[in-house]
């Protein structure tokens, strides 16, 4: 089982990213669950979502305490949340950042999702849309396939720029 924890702020689309990822994994023929952790959520507050992907049906409903992958959609969260908590020894971190982050000890990848969204004017209520481009990065990492990502995005969104943003992140991520 591959376990993913997504850190974001309320309104940045972390929950939708989890659902898109589960849908893409499902389109790949795997079992997946997307479990947003709902707190006293409000815009801007740190939130987490969880995704599990497996070849077998998934029976676990509790939160992910030892993720294989941590995704950080907003690196400013790292000042207030220990995003590396519980990360497996061979785990990976994916940051929404134009630059590598010093001191990010684990295998640490970065891609500028915000820049990709802004370049396509993918903005809702003043915030760049991060949940569709991040799917492209995950495809590049081999967690899901790019065709399934494209399919999943088109199932949930009509605006083709979301697919283009995912493709840009796929091309932009160095693994």
């Amino acid at each position, binding site marked *: 089982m591959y376990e993913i924890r997504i850190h974001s702020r309320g309104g940045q689309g972390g929950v939708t990213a*989890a*659902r898109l990822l*589960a*849908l893409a994994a*499902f389109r790949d023929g795997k*079992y*997946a*669950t*997307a*479990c*947003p952790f*709902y707190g006293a959520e409000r815009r801007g507050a740190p939130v987490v979502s969880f995704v599990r992907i497996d070849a077998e049906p*998934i*029976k*676990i*409903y*509790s*939160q992910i*305490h030892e993720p294989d992958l941590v995704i950080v959609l907003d690196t400013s969260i790292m000042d207030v949340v220990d995003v590396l908590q519980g990360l497996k020894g061979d785990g990976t971190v994916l940051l929404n950042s134009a630059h590598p982050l010093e001191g990010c000890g684990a295998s640490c990848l970065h891609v500028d999702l915000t820049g990709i969204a802004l370049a396509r004017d993918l903005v809702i209520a003043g915030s760049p849309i991060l949940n569709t481009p991040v799917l492209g990065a995950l495809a590049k990492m081999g967690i899901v396939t790019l065709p399934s990502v494209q399919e999943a995005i088109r199932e949930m969104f009509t605006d083709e720029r979301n697919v283009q943003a995912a493709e840009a992140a796929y091309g932009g991520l160095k693994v």
Partner: protein
Amino acid sequence: MLTIATGNKAVAAAAKAAEPGVIAAYPITPQTEIVEQIAEYINAGDLASQYILVESEHSAMAACIGASVGGVRTFTATSSHGLLYMHEMVHWAAGARLPIVMANVNRALGPGWNTWAEHTDAFSQRDTGWLQVFVSTVQEAYDATLMAFKIAEDERVLLPVMVNLDGFTLSHIMQSLETVEIGDFLPPYHLPHAIDTENPCVYGPMTGPNDHFRFRWDIERSMRDARGVIAEVEREFAERFGRSYAPTEDYRCDDADVIVIAMGTLGKEAEVAVDRLRDDGIRAGSMRLRWFRPFPDLDLAGREVVVIDRDYSFGFGGVIAGSVRAKTGIEPYSVIAGLGGQEVTYNDIAGFVRDRRPGEETWFGVNEDV
């Protein structure tokens, strides 16, 4: 069709497939997505139900009662305080023998304000005469809702059915969902005592001390008959659609020395705990209670039992622990865990089994010395 959906959307999809004549509801977290989705179906012309947006849950159930006795299939959904607000009408629906189906997204009761999973809301309706089933996956939420209509409307039952799913833990997670073409699985709605406007008569008149108990007994007789009807419907469902259900879902119980009993998502997570315990040489099994009313017969002879209650009856104990004790004579190890969405992992459940003390009760996470 195979897709991926939340527990809430699965319930809405099943309600749509059942094509109720009337759906009356009031939104409440974490149930709101069900009635939102149904409103979207109706708005898009995919569902021809009359949707009555009421001003309270009491009115939602009252509207369902009126529509049901008027001769149409009805559906509603609620949660927590909404369920308690309709409590009077919940009794009425069963007493009037109306096969209303309601989804209840299990949520704790305030204060303090808490929107997360707990079974106290459903158990507070224990003695209303409603059948109650608890589900553990998105697929089961869909399947159980479809079957609920058939069970409720069976003339040997004619009692309302509550389909319970854990708030957020199931209502808001996404898993795979296979929807079905129901064909003639659900026969046309037929209520033998429906109001006939061509032949008006008094409905629900005063019943005195010489008659009231007969109506109560009739509810219990139907509740007893419901066991067989549930088995029939679940068998037919398996034959038509290939997914099997039973009053309990037993996992690795055959040779188990100790059996974990839980409901809802905790009952499913317990299966993972059982696998871990087996890896350590502990012969554990899990028994997920699906039906709460009618309460299933449990064969636990010769086993140790650990019961996880996501509820509590103050001054008495865990509701399921007490029920297991009363039904089987076994003194379980009673664990109170998961209240108000308290995080409980498969490792925690395995710990409950390892540390079991039959006959005792423990509150997970509570240190009595503090």
